[in-house]
């Protein structure tokens, strides 16, 4: 396999996903490293049952200070960065002032204290930043390209690296939520809704895959902000149903007959796909239990309008200082 020169510089942004071989030095190949370089699912190499830790390990250490941040200041929701909000956590940082796109070469060379290292010439911060951006775009684009063919669950959030903000436009919906639609609306409507939803996701994934300048700049804007994004926090497919909704068992769902919609909950709601994706807060449920005792995130404001509109909205999550 080709040896990854970026990894040898301590600067490979793909981590475990890299298609090239990650060895520190060529001589290390015979050095006790039990890891087979091929991450394939248990079928190659002599250590068939050996689960090699994914090379997420490498980026673990770069995110060390980032994760400590979260623990020491639980209410710091702007704290997925080392921002000024964090209190008392600076002493845990081994790597100072790292923002999302600004990995200095120094931070990466700290990992290999035990090994003799090649001296790396310090890179200018601009070069580092644009290289980081370029590889970030590349990662996103490649992940989007792989997604459809891998048959993975399509309605998932996505972040280009672990512990980074989710990319906007891809709401996080669980399979159970989708399945619920079938029990609520019957096969035909279920299929229609699914087609519409799939269209939205496919469109967004293609945008991210083909990376126009506009996509790039809006990504940088979104990911660079310190606001934690949970773009689907309040996204509720079931804006229509509440207590008293009748669910049919699957044996009866084959009936395409319309299911009762909870118009008592929100009389203005029509049964269009649009309304299905209104965030939960838009529906005021009169029989709701009292509001949660410890408020954590404000649900996103109602948007209404086209489905596409819904998925583009980044909720104005409030950061608590």
């Amino acid at each position: 396999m080709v040896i990854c020169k970026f990894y040898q510089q301590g600067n490979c942004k793909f981590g475990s996903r890299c298609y090239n071989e990650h060895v520190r030095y060529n001589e290390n190949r015979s050095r006790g490293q039990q890891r087979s370089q091929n991450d394939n699912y248990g079928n190659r190499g002599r250590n068939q049952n050996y689960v090699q830790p994914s090379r997420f390990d490498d980026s673990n250490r770069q995110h060390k200070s980032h994760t400590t941040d979260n623990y020491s200041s639980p209410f710091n929701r702007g704290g997925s960065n080392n921002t000024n909000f964090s209190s008392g956590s600076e002493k845990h940082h081994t790597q100072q002032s790292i923002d999302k796109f600004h990995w200095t070469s120094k931070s990466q060379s700290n990992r290999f204290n035990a090994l003799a290292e090649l001296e790396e010439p310090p890179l200018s911060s601009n070069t580092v930043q644009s290289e980081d951006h370029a590889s970030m775009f590349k990662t996103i684009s490649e992940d989007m390209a792989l997604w459809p063919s891998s048959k993975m669950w399509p309605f998932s959030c996505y972040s280009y690296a672990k512990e980074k903000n989710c990319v906007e436009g891809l709401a996080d919906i669980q399979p159970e939520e989708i399945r619920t639609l079938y029990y609520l609306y019957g096969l035909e409507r279920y299929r229609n809704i699914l087609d519409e939803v799939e269209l939205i996701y496919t469109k967004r994934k293609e945008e991210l895959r083909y990376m126009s300048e506009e996509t790039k700049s809006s990504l940088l804007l979104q990911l660079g902000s310190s606001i934690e994004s949970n773009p689907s926090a309040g996204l509720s497919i079931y804006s229509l149903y509440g207590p008293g909704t009748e669910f049919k068992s699957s044996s009866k769902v084959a009936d395409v007959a319309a299911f009762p919609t909870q118009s008592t909950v929100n009389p203005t709601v029509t049964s269009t796909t649009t309304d299905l994706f209104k965030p939960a807060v838009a529906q005021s449920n009169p029989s709701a239990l009292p509001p949660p005792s410890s408020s954590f995130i404000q649900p996103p404001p109602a948007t209404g309008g086209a489905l596409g509109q819904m998925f583009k909205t980044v909720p104005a999550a409030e950061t608590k200082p």
Partner: protein
Amino acid sequence: MANEFKLNNCPTDGISSVKFSPSTSQFLLASSWDMSVRLYDVTENSQRFKYEHKSPVLDCCFSDSVHSWSGGLDGSVMMYDLNTGRETVVGRHNNSIRCVEYCSDTNVVVTGSWDQTIKLWDPRSHNNIGSYSQPGKVFTMSVCGDHIIVGTCGKSVVVWDLRNMGYVEQRRESSLKYQTRCIKSFPNKQGYVLSSIEGRVAVEYLDPSVEVQKKKYAFKCHRIKENGIEHIYSVHAIAFHQRYSTFATGGADGYVNMWDGFNKKRLCQFHLFPAAVSSLAFSNDGSMLAVASSPLYGAELSPSSNGEDAIYIRHVTDAETKPKTSSGLA
């Protein structure tokens, strides 16, 4: 196979969750999209009880050996007394209930919902002890000693101290890039295992200190390469063997793998199950593994998937579940 059999009277629709009784390996609870919660006698292979919700049921658990708690799409929390056969609606959420767990350390039942809250319930008085906001819809939960770990949409993971719910103890992000599917905590309570829809599992530790965080890692699993294209399957279920601390993962590919998280090895892979594995549970003594297999949880979204929903009970051996002693590997 003599060591594995299928339960009689399996649910007639997708099986959302299976749980063994905390005190005996004889009884197994199963919740299903057919709106029922059933109790099975595994030694006799018979269905003992069944009670119904008004909607598909997404999770169930034992609060003690004679009480079952469950919740589903209609948001009502139901408790069923296995002795009297009486069901009680204890309370409700504003939206569907996704998870139901019982914490024995603090004697509290926790329900997690798509309404972005978790609620605590007293098993004796049935009172709602509190309701707590989460950063997003609750997708999965796991009790860890006197703590509860909540996985929400948007890859957030929140750790609460059930003895002190005034604030979040830890707020973290999943270290995986895609939607969180399942979280289960280690029996030693040092950490948890988190799986995603992207055929990947992360082993994480709760101690935020730098040295401990270095130990965390992730690995790929439940992927199948066909014609040069890698199919990536969701890892729907995780279950820990309480004595050995090894864990099983079940995926949409229909396979169950046993892993040794500390030595980072796969111990074994069981045979292919007829459909996607939706839920796993070890008995308290680790002698049996319940595998729920439902086509509903397969890769296809179409509701009319072929195949039957079934629960398989497998007598597991030490060879399959016990960590291997190191044999000279570095």
